[in-house]
């Protein structure tokens, strides 16, 4: 059982460790204060190499969604609801939700992140309706 999904860059590991602990952290530029996702070497606003890892609130809103009607990955049988959410801190990220809430999915609907176990052996932030 791996503790995290495959990493793309050395900047990814602290994020997945924070997710494993149930408190997702993102990099924040110490000069501009801008949060960034995905993790990376520099702030796109300032190109500053200085950053800190800061826990996010977990509050977000839905900006789009799609339902997979075919099974693409063993972990996610169809129908599988994927959402794009805009975090309170600014970045957009992809997540997923339980399909049974599909009738209540709307643009800008508020969601919260929860931490659940992925079949591949790591924890993952999942979106649930906030209201």
């Amino acid at each position, binding site marked *: 059982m791996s503790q995290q*999904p495959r990493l793309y860059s050395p900047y990814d590991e602290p994020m997945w460790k924070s997710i494993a602990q149930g408190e997702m952290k993102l990099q924040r530029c110490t000069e501009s204060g801008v949060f960034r996702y995905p993790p990376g070497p520099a702030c796109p606003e300032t190109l500053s190499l200085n950053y800190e890892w800061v826990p996010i609130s977990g509050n977000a809103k839905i900006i789009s969604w799609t*339902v997979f009607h075919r099974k693409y990955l063993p972990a996610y049988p169809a129908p599988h609801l994927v959402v794009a959410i805009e975090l309170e801190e600014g970045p957009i990220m992809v997540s997923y939700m339980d399909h049974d809430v599909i009738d209540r999915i709307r643009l800008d609907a508020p969601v919260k992140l929860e931490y659940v176990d992925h079949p591949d052996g790591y924890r993952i932030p999942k979106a649930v309706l906030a209201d």
Partner: protein
Amino acid sequence: MQDNIADGSTDTSDISAVVGIGHTDYVDDYRRVRNGEKPHDSYGYATVAFKKALADAGIDRSEVDGLIVGPTTAYERMGEILNIDPTWGGQADAVQAVFQAVMAIKSGMAEVVALVYGNDQRSAAVQYGGPQAMGGQSFLSYVYHSPWGLTSQGALYALMFQRYKALWDLSDKDLGQVAVGQRQWASLNPNAIMSKKPLTIDDYLAAPYVAEPLRLNDYCLINDGGVALIIMEASRARKVAQKPVYIRGLGRSDLNHQATSLGPRLVDFYRPAQQKAAQQVYSAAGIGPKDIDALLVYDSFTPHIFFALEGFGFCEQGEAAHFIAQTGIGVNGKLPINTHGGHVSESYMQGWNHQIEAVRQVRGGLDQRQVTDCRHVQYISDVAGKAMSVIYGA
């Protein structure tokens, strides 16, 4: 404001012309592959298309001094097979290959550039989604999306179109107009894989969703084949070809900011990039959207058509569904779109088949699907945030 671009002085007009085109027999290759045969690999399909393009141009291989190959074949190996030792060459996708050919000719690095593309994606069972997705391990989007189950290009366009659909209150029928229109064109194209099956809006709606709101017929085909073009310096082309098809203008603008987290798609719908590219391509060609006789749009998925129409000024923001219904994009429509059937009905040649359809329409003399008085054909693509366009003309 980038002045030289904003005022339209990007001079890409009439540097070069297409003098030869070639393609494989998509229908026969499809039939054979379904029967378990493997007629060619990627290099073989490219070679068949290259020989046809060379014959169409009526020139000898020794005149070719530039070689650009598609992303599915290695440059050096393709050059080895075709026995071309160019003064300039490389590997690029369809529209970038056209741009690079024009740039090589403009700079004097080459005068006659062969563009060759071959793909055995169906016989090789290439996966565009799921755990074995082609090249997926190297793409940021697969690393930052797949833990949540988002792995296919189609799903990215599904996310994009779902937001668009919700913002403008569209129905599934609105999107279905594109697949229906392109299938009409395919029915007049003997080289289209889907030429024998008409598609009504009810058929479209009866087909299953793949990644909602996209249904089966919103997705491109997966097939084997090859395409080639010979692009020549314009003054030389006039001496060689009876009817050179000039590249009248190019336009390009990219959006990379927040690309992995889908900002350019979901916040901007690629529109600012398309508007800049539109300004360049129309300025270079000295025309506007109203002068376009046929429009060819990279259509791995049907939503591309909506974003192209709005981004390039054929209609206002949020108006594409209405525009398509009112104007008509299929046979007898006022703005013919993807007159070969596109990727969803003719063949999925990753934008390469659109380039040769532009040439065929401008040359004229096609049978039933010839667009009347076709003087200007525009190509538009928005792949991965690169908004690009070419205008071809007589």
